[in-house]
């Protein structure tokens, strides 16, 4: 049991660290740009400091910037240095991890658009209420802004951002980020494998409370949170629990809580947390009935939260191999790039710290270069810092929008990927290789969702017909997954006790075959539907040219 828990914690933390890497990198970049290019005075202006707009403005900026609840920590620390009030900082810190262009797009195709709109507005209510209260009760929460000298134009100005990032990665920002990851260790210990499947069903009055307890230590990227939100609505889970998962699971972690306590004291932090929980739970319970989906069959369990539980059975062994395999299988290219960039910044930061011991690097960075009459050309235009800073922040937002098109490819590209994955799933399922099939099923589910978003992104709409075709495939995938789990359990029981006859109402492998066939048919229908997207008139169904694949691949 100890082995399973220990290696489970290693796996969960490693997975979260790799998923968070691109967002943490973005957070360090934003913090450095705030510090070096935008400057404290302009940061306060950007967030509407001292005006009625500060909280909604912080919310709006949070909606645009692509950071997670770990990546937002360096940004919040920088905002505090700039002299912003606690309410504004916490409003931004809570909102930024919830939404960004990619995750909003994802959510719009999973749930009813009105639900996403309602949740966005409710997040605005949450941050505004607690922000106003915090600033009213603790009016002296803003610290005196740190005076920083701007770097002159040229190579020093660019270098100053890298230097700031290097120093920041070796500061308490990283300590708070690591503390944020400890929440996963706590969940890994408390929640055995697959133990949270049935605790957030719709109509269960305890569901929002239980989800709150799990969501606070949990870490979820904006995309994961939105994906789980969609799954919860598709399974008829508690709306209040979904809201708690979004706000607290994606928006909060132990690192932010510790930073708050250190920065503002435990009393202010306790007040803020209490009000936050009260508002989130109050809104969650209030939204339960109005937003509950009426057009779905409520399931009595969901696998969406297995990622927060220990990944290993306590009786299993060979954990280290499984950890390696899982990490190698799950890590994505952008996560590898994020990790490499963070490693490079960490090395650069070490170099900066070494240089700082012998040489006043800050003085060099802020000393203007000597300019001669010959070196100034009429074509040389010195861009103000705020232009560079604004371009950098705006560029980040623009890149995240452009990345949507890469992350959600065209329908044709998605169907090509799904074709390969389908072969893996169906051949593995029919040949009895349950592990292999169950490995590929979540990947198929992911591409199934990306297919819908890809259409929505390019055509700005997704018909109910196409949405239902994709949903049928998703349902059949889940049924196949259950059949495979059933087969796995039966095989395990047979291995443990060979002396007893095992009588089944349904042969587990026949069940797998049945659902594999249904899945193949559902997939074919979906492919036809999506390939006919550009047709202006509906045509009779096309004859299948590869009917053999429905009978066995």
């Amino acid at each position, binding site marked *: 049991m100890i082995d399973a828990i220990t290696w489970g914690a290693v796996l969960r933390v490693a997975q979260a660290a790799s998923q968070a890497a691109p967002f943490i990198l973005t957070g360090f970049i934003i913090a450095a740009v705030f510090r070096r290019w935008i400057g404290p005075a302009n940061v306060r202006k950007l967030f509407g400091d001292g005006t009625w707009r500060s909280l909604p403005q912080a919310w709006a900026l949070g909606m645009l910037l692509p950071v997670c609840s770990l990546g937002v920590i360096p940004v919040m620390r920088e905002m505090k240095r700039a002299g912003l009030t606690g309410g504004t900082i916490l409003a931004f810190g809570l909102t930024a991890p919830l939404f960004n262009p990619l995750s909003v797009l994802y959510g719009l195709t999973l749930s009813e658009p009105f639900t996403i709109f309602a949740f966005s507005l409710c997040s605005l209510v949450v941050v505004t209420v607690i922000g106003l209260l915090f600033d009213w009760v603790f009016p002296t929460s803003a610290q005196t802004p740190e005076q920083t000298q701007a770097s002159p134009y040229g190579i020093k100005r660019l270098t100053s951002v890298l230097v700031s990032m290097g120093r920041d990665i070796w500061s308490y920002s990283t300590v708070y980020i690591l503390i944020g990851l400890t929440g996963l260790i706590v969940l890994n210990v408390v929640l055995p494998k697959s133990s949270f499947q*049935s605790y957030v069903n719709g109509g269960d009055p305890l569901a929002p409370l239980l989800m709150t307890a799990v969501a606070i230590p949990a870490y979820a990227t904006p995309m994961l949170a939105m994906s789980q939100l969609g799954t919860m609505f598709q399974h008829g889970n508690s709306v209040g629990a979904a809201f708690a998962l979004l706000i607290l699971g994606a928006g909060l972690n132990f690192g932010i809580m510790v930073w708050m306590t250190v920065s503002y004291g435990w009393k202010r932090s306790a007040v803020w947390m209490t009000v936050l929980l009260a508002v989130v739970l109050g809104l969650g319970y209030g939204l339960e009935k109005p937003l509950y989906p009426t057009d779905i069959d409520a399931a009595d369990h969901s696998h969406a939260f297995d990622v927060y539980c220990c990944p290993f059975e*306590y009786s299993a062994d060979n954990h280290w191999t499984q950890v390696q395999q899982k990490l190698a299988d799950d890590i994505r290219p952008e996560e590898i790039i994020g990790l490499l960039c963070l490693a490079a910044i960490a090395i650069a930061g070490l170099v900066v710290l070494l240089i700082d011991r012998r040489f006043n690097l800050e003085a060099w960075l802020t000393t203007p270069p000597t300019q001669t009459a010959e070196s100034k050309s009429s074509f040389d235009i010195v861009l103000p810092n705020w232009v560079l800073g604004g371009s950098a922040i705006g560029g980040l937002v623009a890149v995240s929008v452009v990345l949507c098109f890469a992350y959600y490819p065209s329908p044709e590209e998605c169907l090509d990927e799904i074709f390969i994955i389908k072969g893996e799933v169906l051949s593995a399922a029919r040949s009895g290789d349950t592990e292999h099939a169950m490995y590929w099923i979540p990947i198929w589910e992911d591409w199934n969702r990306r297919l819908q978003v890809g259409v929505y992104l390019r055509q700005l709409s997704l018909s109910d017909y196409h949405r*239902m075709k994709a949903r*049928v495939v998703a349902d059949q995938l889940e049924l196949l997954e259950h059949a495979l789990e059933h087969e796995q*359990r039966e095989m395990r029981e047979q291995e443990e006790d060979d002396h007893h006859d095992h009588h089944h109402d349904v042969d587990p492998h026949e069940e797998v075959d049945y659902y594999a066939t249904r899945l193949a048919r559902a997939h074919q229908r979906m492919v036809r539907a999506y390939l006919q997207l550009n047709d202006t008139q509906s045509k009779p169904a096309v004859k299948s040219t590869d*009917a053999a694949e429905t009978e066995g691949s």
Partner: protein
Amino acid sequence: MTGLRTRKLLCYGMMMLLCATGCLSADGEHDEHADHEIPAHKPEHFVEAIEQLSLRSQAVKSPQDNQELSDIVGWLPELAAQTDLPKSDWDRIHELTLQWQMLEEQPEKLAAAIQDHQTELDTLSQRALELDTSNSLGQKVD
């Protein structure tokens, strides 16, 4: 206040929390996997759903009958999507479903509305069966 004392308190708090969660962690050997419960009255396929609508709309005698009839109405778009009916036909079924769902609280009107469209439903059912057969898929999966 925000200095060393606070940091120490936080460290002790985190240690206590980790110890407590270790003690509180449940025995992990139980497998709480839950199976999907499919309602007994859910039709297996679209053709059966149309047959059930025809039969049940003529025999609504209790609130449970009405609930089950409403459930089948709700399942129609999903079951229709599991056939090769083209988009136009599916949209029509979806439109009818939305209209009938507004009559859920009025069992007699719901039953009457279904019966009024029985011919259309039978045509759609027949078309679904023909399309599935012609695509070598077969509507009935055993």
